Structures are given as C-alpha cells and as structure tokens.
C-alpha cells in the first residue's frame, strides 16, 4: 500500500517508531524487506461487510458486458 518512492527518512522513522508498515501483497512486502531492510508485516486485505454495497440485479438487466478495472 505504500510506494517505495516514500523517502527513506520516513522509513527510518516508521521503522524505529511504534508504527509498523503493513503490506497487502507479497511483492511490495518482499521489496521493502529485501531491498530497504524495512521491518514489515504482511496483512492481506480481508472482507468487511461494508463492502457489500451493490444489490444484485438480474442478468437481463445487466447492460455492460465487460467492466475494465484497475488504477
């Protein structure tokens, strides 16, 4: 969740403060541990009920065949 572009000074602060850096997927987690020596914890994104926000609609009511997502 945190870009490697964040300054190393901030990493140092986080590393030595009570805060820990939490990552949601392995590639960032491994990069920060192996390349920057930052103490990190891998915490996958999990389910919270508040994410269930779109009531299901019937197939025939769906008017988009393919939705392309991704930042």
């Amino acid at each position, binding site marked *: *969740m945190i870009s490697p572009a964040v300054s190393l000074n901030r990493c140092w602060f986080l590393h030595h403060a*009570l805060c*820990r850096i*939490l990552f*949601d*997927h*392995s*590639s960032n987690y491994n990069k920060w541990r192996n390349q920057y020596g930052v103490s990190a*914890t891998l*915490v*996958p*994104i*999990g*389910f*919270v009920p508040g*994410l*269930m*926000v*779109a*009531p*299901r*609609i019937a*197939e025939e*009511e*769906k*008017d*988009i*065949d*393919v*939705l*392309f*997502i*991704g*930042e």
Partner: protein
Amino acid sequence: MLCVVGGAGTNNDYRRPILHAIAATGVTIHAPLAFGERLRTLVQRSRIVLNLRSFGNADEFKMSRLMLMFANSAFVLSEDMGVEGDVGPYREGMVIVPARDLPNAVQYYLQRPLLRAKIGETGHQIFAARTQAAMLRDPVAKLVQRAGCQQS
C-alpha cells in the same frame, strides 16, 4: 452481439493491445474513469469484470482492486498475475488466463451466465471467509505487545 466494455481502469501501452484484441471480437470499448458510487453502479450492471496487469509485471495481485468485486459476487476474469501466496486462495473464485486468451474467454463466459454466477458466488464466499478482523488480529496483538514492552 453488441458488447460494451465499461471502464474504471486506466489505459496504457501495456493494456492497450489487450483491450484492442478484445475489441476486435466485436466489443465496443467505453472507458470512463469511475470511483465510489459510480464504480459500484458499474459493478452491479456488469457481466464480466476484467482485471489486467498494470505494466506487465507478473508478481502484482492487487486485492485493493478486487475487494469490491469479490464482496459483491462479481464475476472476475483476470490476466494471470500474482504469486501463489496472494492469488492462490482466490483461484476457485475467479477465472485466470494468459492475456492472449482473454478475447476468447470474454466470449465464452458472456454466453454462460449460470457459470459466471456460480464462480462469482464462490469468489464471494472465499473472500467473506477471510475477514479483515482475522487478518489484523495477530499483527495488532504484536503491536500492542510491543507498545506495552516499550512503555514499561
């Protein structure tokens, strides 16, 4: 068949040829940026949610992108990506194919609504069983323990 590709994702030099290949099967591409309520409405109205790599790097698997989809039982068709530890738990709840197979996969699954619904529901059940509270329990406990040690 007239198809519409709605968009919440950004286009780039890596994704463009893949989207063009899908468009070549008769799909019309319509890609507005969308977030929040607009994105939720798009998910609700969509038969297939397409997940592509950002720049071709194979090890990324961004649940921040997919959590809304799994939570709402959307059918996710994804380019192959991610390491096993990240993507493994969700393999049964989505369809993952190489980029070159996406155009055929889009056509295949568009014609199979019951199969899409079944896979989407499986994805939801997998995700719902992996609660954020459970994911955070150990790390937060260690944080509290560490804070307690530093205060004493």
